[in-house]
């Protein structure tokens, strides 16, 4: 059996631990002694409505600390005058061993209606995948899709055309929406992570311009640290 030896804590984990401390997320102390040099993370939400009145999450799944798989399904979801959807699913899987690490997440919803028809979509699917080994680490969002999207009465060019990453459209009186929002972090050597939010509505105060709420549909996250 190959034995995993951790010679000190990798710089990437130190950086991630520091990030966690800054954001208020601290690692359980015991984990440091048991961990190998590789780590994975994954999380998916079919939808999140985060407004001043509170946060509601639909079909959320988080990868267990020991790796493996987590999933969540929901037939229907509704927030009055804000959001409806059907067939909501999130699946996240991943694991690390001495050879490498891999994590992948899908998050999806159908028949999406946001803010009483301001944005509608037939099918929303976010795919995030991160992987790494001794050669390096990388992430990608391939397979993510938006089908039949209509924004403020204007359909996308083609029924099955997924917009380019980070496509922003203003929503007068509301704020703006970013379609196919992709955020990649990590140094590509010791760490890599991907967050994909297929529909991300930023609700802004009309006077101050401050973001006061968010509606996210199809949110997939994956991460590896080496």
């Amino acid at each position, binding site marked *: 059996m190959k034995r995993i030896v951790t010679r000190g804590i990798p710089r990437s984990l130190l950086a991630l631990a520091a990030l966690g401390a800054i954001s208020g997320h601290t690692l359980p102390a015991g984990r440091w002694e048991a961990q190998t040099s*590789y780590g*994975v993370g994954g999380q998916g939400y079919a939808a999140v409505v985060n407004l001043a009145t509170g946060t509601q999450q639909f079909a959320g799944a988080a990868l267990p600390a020991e790796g493996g*798989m987590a999933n969540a399904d929901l037939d229907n979801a509704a927030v009055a005058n804000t959001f409806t959807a059907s067939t909501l*699913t999130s699946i996240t899987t991943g694991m690390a061993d001495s050879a490498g690490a891999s994590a992948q997440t899908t998050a999806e919803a159908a028949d999406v209606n946001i803010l009483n028809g301001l944005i509608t979509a037939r099918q929303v*699917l976010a*795919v995030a*995948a991160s992987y790494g080994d001794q050669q390096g680490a990388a992430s990608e969002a391939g397979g993510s899709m938006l089908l039949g999207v209509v924004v403020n009465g204007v359909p996308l060019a083609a029924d099955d055309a997924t917009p380019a990453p980070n496509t922003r459209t203003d929503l007068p009186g509301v704020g703006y929406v970013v379609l196919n929002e992709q955020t990649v972090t990590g140094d590509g050597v010791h760490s890599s992570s991907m967050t994909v939010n297929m529909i991300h509505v930023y609700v802004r105060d009309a006077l101050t311009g401050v973001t006061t709420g968010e509606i996210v549909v199809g949110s997939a996250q994956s991460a590896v640290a080496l």
Partner: protein
Amino acid sequence: MMQRTQALHLAPLLATTLVALACEKPPNPAAPKQPSFVTVDEKTDRITGGGKLDGGRDFATFGFNARSDDRGQIEWVQHCLDGVVTGSPTCSSGSFTFHGSTVGRYGAPAEDPTHCRAWSGTGEAKFQDGSTADDGFDVAACDFGQPGRGMDFICFSLSGYLRSGNLSGGNIQRHEGSPESFENACATTIVVTT
């Protein structure tokens, strides 16, 4: 005196930090986070993966975790955006979600024992009309490298349903071990791409 000067310099920073904390918005669960950390069991052969197969209006999404000690699960979501399509190999029953919570047999298929694993089990399919059905399933999955998109292979089979091909998104990762040989209905569909 030196200590007092430092304290004076720190005061604005402390005040800024306190104001920032007081004004902090409720956390957005969809915001990027740092990964959690795992311990590794090197004795057990395992394969994990997730992603998407095919595209357009007839595709599947999935995730799985299967191990040689007969533990694991799989979620398979068949999407038929045009509804039931008579005669279709994948949409003759319309959209459905299958969850397999058992792994009855697991091993390395003869077609490619280096890259692939095959396993079988039982689970429940849930259809769009709300009906459910218990069924046995067969899976074969292959890790041909990274990224998995366009390379890795998966096959999933139920009674009257079989879908296989290279991933259109996601990744499959095989974790080293010494499994026994095992063949199922999916193993024969493996397409070696390396």
